[in-house]
Structure formats: structure tokens, C-alpha cells
């Protein structure tokens, strides 16, 4: 029997699922709050996709700036779908959290006076993005990991969560597969914090790492928690052809141009004030329009940074200089690099309040897998890293406080044994030559790109929904070639695919229902924003027949919706 089930139940007050920035920040804060914490992550924490964030992290602290301005830009960027109470928390607490990161050791770039330097970013009225060259995510992720090491927090790395354990409506823990041994463990917790990041691999291609398969969102969804605003997926304006790897917004923040095949800075047509630094949804649509109207270059537009000079490129944009060289064969000092819009970030996720509480007791969420909602219909660059630390901290704190009042339920190892039976059955499915999970995943990815991409309409979305539902049927027949227990990535791919298919369905169903255009969700058949009918959040609940939608109001405290131009 290659897979085994651990008879022992592992117990921790708080279990954080996900070892990226939000997860580790939550774990640190929960530990500070006195809880016994463990991080469960399907990769070693430093491998998490937070490392790929390049450009920076926002905080309004320059003399002319204020948290209110940051909040307004975020609200406007969200196309008024963001909850303004949550956005206030994000922007008010930004500085405190960034200072704490600095004290932990993040090597933020400085001004002449030795204080934190800021760079301009898209959709922002002022330069308010702190940065470490173009490796900001990596530089922060590693430092927070250092703090995890310092705090001696238990970390179960390369453990893949397969389900949440829910008893009497409360989340009591989870079951996870230890890849190294092929053992299924039952882990009991008084509170579980989901911090599993994004789901970009649902699309083909994507800037996201191969691990970004929405696991936490899917686990929560199937366990009964509400997902929110899943139809809002961000397409980043500058991704490399063909791999889809990210080229930082910092390239435009530093002054890079976007050019069409005629050599025109076409953004002047679409955003006469902010040009290349309009919000991402605006820039991506502009690029897509240029490409579709025949002014593209092999399905791309061109990003030109040559005029920034060697010094700026090699110090502040070194990573993308390397990536362009390695993956596209382009020397950024000498020529522009072809880029196109690509799936980058999921605005929607597990619905939470500002302390990370989901609709299910005992279950918290933070970071990209959560939807607070601070990004609404479109996220601003530099706000995602910020979200991970602000709401990771708050979720960790709230969880640690809650668990003081909650006893362990005394789980048996039955959940692990049940999963063991289920996964063993999966493992026995099919033989060599059977349907491969990658085939199903790619079909899903192509259908999502075509039908639920930068531009959408009812026909395309309906077609995509049909495809996704068809693939859910075929998923039952996918074969697992690797029959072993140890480091079975074939099996893990299958589990991830199941997660992605469930989520893809919520994204398309939500998008089909939303008959308006807002932020990243642009319906050609409903090209205007409709605040009368659609200034509201989409909630998706799991049923065996597919997602059941509900709607919830948007919190508008300070700013009423206005026409949005850049």
C-alpha cells in the first residue's frame, strides 16, 4: 500500500494553511498572541509565489500624500466595488506594517536621507510604492521567513491539504498529504487560517507559479464557506510571450513606454492623463484593443525601457532584464520586449471580514485567497503585498484571540483514514495511456482565456461554462500514472485540477450573471458600469449541481461611485 494514514492526530491551536507572505505573517502574529501555531504548506515557504511579486508595496507617507488619498485611489481602482471600511484599514495600517517589515530586516531602497524611497505605480496619485529593486516580494518573503525561523514556528513543508474537517458547522482542522512519505495526516486546530494564494493556473497562460491552483479557496468552498466576487480576475498588462511570466509594473513606474506596431505610445488614446500608469484593467484593455485592431506585434505590444538608461535598468529592473534575456532572448538595453495582457491575480476569494473571519466559524482567510474586499473589481499594483501583511497580521491576531476560548474537539484520525480511502481510490484510477490531467487542465485554461478573458460576452461565457462542466465530467476519468506514495506529483496535479475546475465554474457563473462592466470584468454586451443593479458583491456557495449565487451590498462610506477615467 503506497499511501498510508497516520493514526496520530497532530494538534495545534492555530494551523495556517499556506507558507507565503500572508500565511507566515498570520503565523507570526498568532504565535505572538500566545497560540501554538503550525504552518502547513505544499512547498517550502520560500518557494511560495509571494516571491514573484516584483514591483513594490504601497504606503502613503510622503509629505503631500495621505492614507485617505491612497484609499481613494484604491476605491477608484476597484471601480467602487471595494468595501471602503476594509480599504480604510488597509491604507491606515500600511505604514505601520511596512515599518515593521523594515525593522525585521527588509532592505527597502532608500532616499538620500536614508529613509524609504518611493516609486510611482499604476492608478496611484503619488509615488507611494516602497520597493527592493524589482525583487520586492522575494525580499519581503525571505525576511518574514527569517522571523518564522527565529520564532521556531513548526512548519510542515511539502504537505498538500486535501480537505478541511468540519464538525457541527465549525472548522476543526484539515487533512494533509505529506509528499515526502506518502502519509495522510489528520491535523486538529482550534482555528484554521487559509493563506493559499491565487488560482492563476486556471488560465493558460498565467503569470502565476505552477503551485497557484486555488487550493484553499476550493477547500473552503466545498466545506461550505462563501466565495466572493470570483468573476473578477486581473489581467496584468505586461507579461512575457509565450511563457506568461511577469514583467513588473515597476518598468512603467520607472518611466517605461508601451508602444504599438507603429511605434506610438498608444495609451494616450485610452488614458490621456496617466498614460502607461492607468490602472491595470484599463491598460490591459487598451493593449488588447490595439492587438485586435491590428496594431500589435505578433499578438503583443512593445514595452520599451531603453531611454531609462543602463544604470536604472541594471539596478532597479535587474530581474526583468534577466527574465527578458533568459525567456524572450531580448536585451532590454538594446530593444523593446514584446508583452501582452496575462492572467495575474484573483480579486475574488473566500469572503472575510477585516479580521479574516470567513462565513464559517473557526475558519479564517488572508491574502490572495481571501476577499475582504479591498481590491473590488480591480487591484492596484503594490496593494497585494500590502494586503498580505495587513490582513495576514489581523487574521493571525484574531485567530489567536479566539482560540483562547475554544477547546480542542478531540478529533480522531478518522478524517485522515477517510481521505486515505478516497485518495487510494483516485490512485488506482486508469493506467498508462489514459486521460492525462494536463490535457483537461489545458482545455480549461484555453477555454477560460477565450471566454472569460480581458473582454467577455454572454455567448463566450456560456460556451466556457459548458466546457468547464464538460471537463468536470471528464475529470472523473483522469488516470494517475504514478502509483507510488512518495513525492507523487502526478497525484497532486490531479487534486489541484479538481480544485481549479470547481473554482473555474464559480468564476464563469459569476461572470455570466453580472450583466455590466466593472473593473477587470468587461462585458462587450454590457459595456457600461451599472451601479443601480450591480454595485454589489457576488457570493458563491457550493452545491452538488454547481454554485448557488447570492449578492451582498458594497460598503460605501466616504466616496460615492463616480465616472472613472485615468
Amino acid at each position, binding site marked *: 500500500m503506497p499511501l498510508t494514514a497516520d493514526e496520530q492526530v497532530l494538534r495545534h491551536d492555530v494551523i495556517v494553511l499556506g507558507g507565503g507572505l500572508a500565511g507566515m505573517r498570520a503565523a507570526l502574529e498568532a504565535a505572538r498572541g500566545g497560540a501554538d501555531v503550525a504552518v502547513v504548506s505544499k512547498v517550502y515557504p*520560500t518557494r511560495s509565489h509571494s516571491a514573484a511579486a516584483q514591483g513594490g508595496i504601497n504606503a502613503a507617507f510622503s509629505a503631500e500624500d495621505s492614507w485617505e488619498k491612497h484609499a481613494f485611489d484604491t476605491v477608484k481602482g476597484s471601480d467602487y466595488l471595494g468595501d471602503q471600511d476594509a480599504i480604510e484599514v488597509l491604507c491606515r495600517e500600511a505604514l505601520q506594517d511596512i515599518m515593521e517589515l523594515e*525593522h*525585521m*530586516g527588509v532592505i527597502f531602497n532608500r532616499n538620500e536621507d536614508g529613509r524609504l524611497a518611493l516609486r510611482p505605480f499604476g492608478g496611484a496619485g503619488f509615488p507611494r510604492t516602497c520597493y527592493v529593486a524589482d525583487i520586492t516580494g522575494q525580499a519581503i518573503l525571505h525576511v518574514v521567513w527569517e522571523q518564522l525561523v527565529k520564532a521556531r514556528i513548526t512548519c510542515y513543508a511539502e504537505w498538500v491539504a486535501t480537505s478541511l474537517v468540519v464538525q457541527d458547522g465549525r472548522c476543526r482542522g484539515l487533512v494533509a498529504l505529506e509528499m515526502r512519505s506518502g502519509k495522510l495526516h489528520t491535523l486538529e486546530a482550534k482555528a484554521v487560517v487559509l493563506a493559499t494564494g491565487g488560482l492563476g493556473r486556471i488560465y493558460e497562460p498565467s503569470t502565476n507559479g505552477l503551485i497557484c491552483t486555488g487550493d484553499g479557496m476550493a477547500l473552503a468552498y466545498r466545506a461550505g464557506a462563501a466565495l466572493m466576487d470570483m468573476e473578477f480576475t486581473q489581467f496584468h498588462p505586461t507579461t512575457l510571450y*509565450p*511563457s506568461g511570466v511577469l514583467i513588473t509594473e515597476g518598468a512603467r513606474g520607472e518611466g517605461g513606454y508601451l508602444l504599438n506596431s507603429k511605434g506610438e505610445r498608444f495609451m494616450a488614446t485610452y488614458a490621456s492623463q496617466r498614460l502607461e500608469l492607468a490602472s491595470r484593467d484599463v491598460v490591459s484593455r487598451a493593449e488588447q484593443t490595439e492587438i485586435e485592431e491590428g496594431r500589435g506585434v505578433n499578438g503583443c505590444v512593445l514595452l520599451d525601457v531603453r531611454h531609462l538608461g543602463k544604470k536604472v535598468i541594471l539596478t532597479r529592473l535587474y530581474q526583468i532584464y534577466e527574465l527578458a534575456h*533568459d525567456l524572450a532572448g531580448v536585451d532590454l538595453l538594446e530593444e523593446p520586449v514584446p508583452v501582452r495582457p496575462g492572467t495575474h491575480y484573483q480579486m475574488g476569494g473566500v469572503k472575510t471580514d477585516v479580521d479574516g473571519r470567513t462565513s464559517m466559524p473557526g475558519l479564517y482567510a488572508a491574502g490572495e485567497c481571501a476577499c475582504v474586499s479591498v481590491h473590488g473589481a480591480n487591484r492596484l499594483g503594490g496593494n497585494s503585498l500590502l494586503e498580505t501583511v495587513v490582513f495576514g497580521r489581523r487574521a493571525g491576531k484574531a485567530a489567536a484571540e479566539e482560540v483562547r476560548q475554544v477547546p480542542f474537539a478531540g478529533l480522531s484520525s478518522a478524517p485522515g483514514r477517510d481521505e486515505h480511502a478516497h485518495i487510494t481510490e483516485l490512485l488506482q484510477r486508469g493506467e498508462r495511456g489514459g486521460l*492525462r490531467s494536463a490535457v483537461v487542465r489545458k482545455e480549461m485554461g484555453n477555454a477560460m482565456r477565450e471566454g472569460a478573458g480581458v473582454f467577455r460576452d454572454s455567448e463566450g461565457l456560456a460556451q466556457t461554462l459548458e466546457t468547464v462542466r464538460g471537463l468536470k465530467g471528464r475529470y472523473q476519468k483522469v488516470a494517475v500514472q504514478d502509483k507510488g506514495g512518495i513525492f507523487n506529483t502526478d497525484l497532486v496535479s490531479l487534486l489541484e485540477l479538481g480544485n481549479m475546475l470547481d473554482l473555474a465554474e464559480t468564476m464563469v457563473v459569476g461572470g455570466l450573471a453580472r450583466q455590466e462592466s466593472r473593473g477587470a470584468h468587461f462585458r462587450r454586451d454590457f459595456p457600461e458600469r451599472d451601479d443601480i443593479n450591480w454595485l454589489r458583491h457576488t457570493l458563491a456557495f457550493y452545491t452538488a449541481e454547481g454554485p448557488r449565487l447570492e449578492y451582498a451590498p458594497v460598503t460605501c462610506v466616504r466616496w460615492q461611485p463616480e465616472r472613472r477615467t485615468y
Partner: protein
Amino acid sequence: MQAHLRVRRFDPEEPAPQPRYQDYTVEAEDYFTVLDALIKIREEEDGTLAVRCSCRSSVCGSCAMRINGHATLACKTKLTDASKGRDVVLVEPMGNMPVVKDLVTDLQSFWDKVWAVEPFLQPQGPVPEQEYLASNESMVHLTGVMNCIMCGACVSDCTVLAVDPNFLAPAALAKAYRFVADPRDGASKERLRALSQYGGIWDCTRCLECVQVCPKDVAPMDRIMTLRDKAMQAGYTSTYGARHTIAFSELLKESGRLDELRLPVMTFGIFNLPRMLSLVPVGLRALVRGKMPPIFHRAIPGVEHIRRSFRSAEAKR
């Protein structure tokens, strides 16, 4: 194009597990990296092939492995480059660590060593309300080390680790440098003291392997060399390593060239009887064969200019 890969496989669940090589032929696009090819194999041909990977853009550090004998990131290695002048691209797991399965290695000892250098900032004094003031130069300098994604490539190919598992090895030492060189860290002296011990900075042979294979230009060995200098400056000069470097420099300053007879004497100390005696058999053998440096060491012409350069460098430090 068609690419041929020879992959070292290892299945720990076989009755008597043995590594073996398996050949694959991949229909590859021009832009493919070695990782793209491995993923294609895994997805289309052989789902049992185990490989770690995620970001595809050299930041997560998952896919370090040996390609054509040297450690690197599979996602950073173009298949066309790896195939150049070869019939087959050789793909193997990293060295200096146990293999879990196929290309997946056990990095526990890697992490243990990183942890051993206390890899976290240890500031002294009260925490400021705002940020610590620091020069941009110092932060940009550290970016070069923070570029390390802890992929393990340098450790895989470290020649000292191959003979001595106790060596901290390049990644952990570069990580240590990151703190020693951080103007905000208050534990630099203590760190340098610890790093001067056996297994630390002085055990590096300067073979440059880590500088060569590092996919992120961290140049770990250069960091180790700077740590040596900082350790000597901090007063940790009693190790044989420090004594060797100091003696070498002094002899060079004196005559402009190496004095091979006096170097070991100065390194060990003339009164260090056990070490001096240990030189005797080697010296005798050399004497018998006439393989000895000249007893009377001559300075090079113009040595005064060398001495002046030394003085000028010392004044600048």
C-alpha cells in the same frame, strides 16, 4: 525541434532502489527551457517523473538540478543552449544531498545550515518609531545577496562539502554575510567569531564553483572572502586561515613574491611544535628530490612600488 534528454531516475519504492538513466525525446519549441521539456515529459509521456517546480522565472528556487553535470535552475536554462554540441542533455538531481525521488532531493541539511547562522536581523538598542536610517548604497549592496533564492545549486556543487559534511557551505555563508554587512545588525562581531570556527569561512577552498553555478549572481565565494576580511578586521586573527592570509600578504609586501618556506612557518608559528613537526616528512621528501624553493628568497626589482601600494591600500582602509 527535437531534444533528447537523459534523466537520472530513482524510485525509492522499488524493492532494491537503484538510480538509473532514462532517455526521452521531446518535441520542443525554440523558446523551451529544460524545465519546459521536463514538464512536457511529465504531462504527456511519463507522469511518474518527479521534479519540483513552480515559478518558471528563477525566483522560487524549486527547480535546481544538475544539467550536463553542473547545478543550475532548469527554468533558467534554455534547451537550445543545453543541447549545444551534445547528442543528449544530461539531467540529474543536485549533488551533496540525498535523493528523495528522481530529480527531487532532500534539502534538510541545506536548511539546517542556513538556520545555523541565525538567519535573522539582530538589531541592538531600542527599535525606532520610523525606519532605521541606512544608506541606499548599503541596501543596494545587500540586494546582491538577497537575490539568493536558496535553490541549493551552490551547495550541490560545493567541492568542500563533497569531502566534509560539516562545512556550512556557500548558501549559508552568503546568508550570514547578508547580516554581517547589514548596517542595522548588531551582532556582526559575534557572527564573525562563530563563522571563524571549523566548518566556517576559512574552510572554503576558493574553488569558485559556487560563483560559477549560482543562477542569481550572488557570488557566494566572494561573500565568504569579504567575511574573512571582516573577521580579521574584527580581530579574529588566530585561526590558521587568518594567519595564512596575513602572512601571505606580509611576505608579498616584503618581497613582491611568495616566500614558500616562510609562509607555513609564519602560519603555524615557529613555536607550534606539532604543526612544525608535521611539516618535516613532507619537507624531507622534497629535500631528497630537490623539489625545494630556494633558501635565499630574493625580492623582485621595483619592490618598493609594491610596498608603497600596500601602504596606500592600508591607509585607505
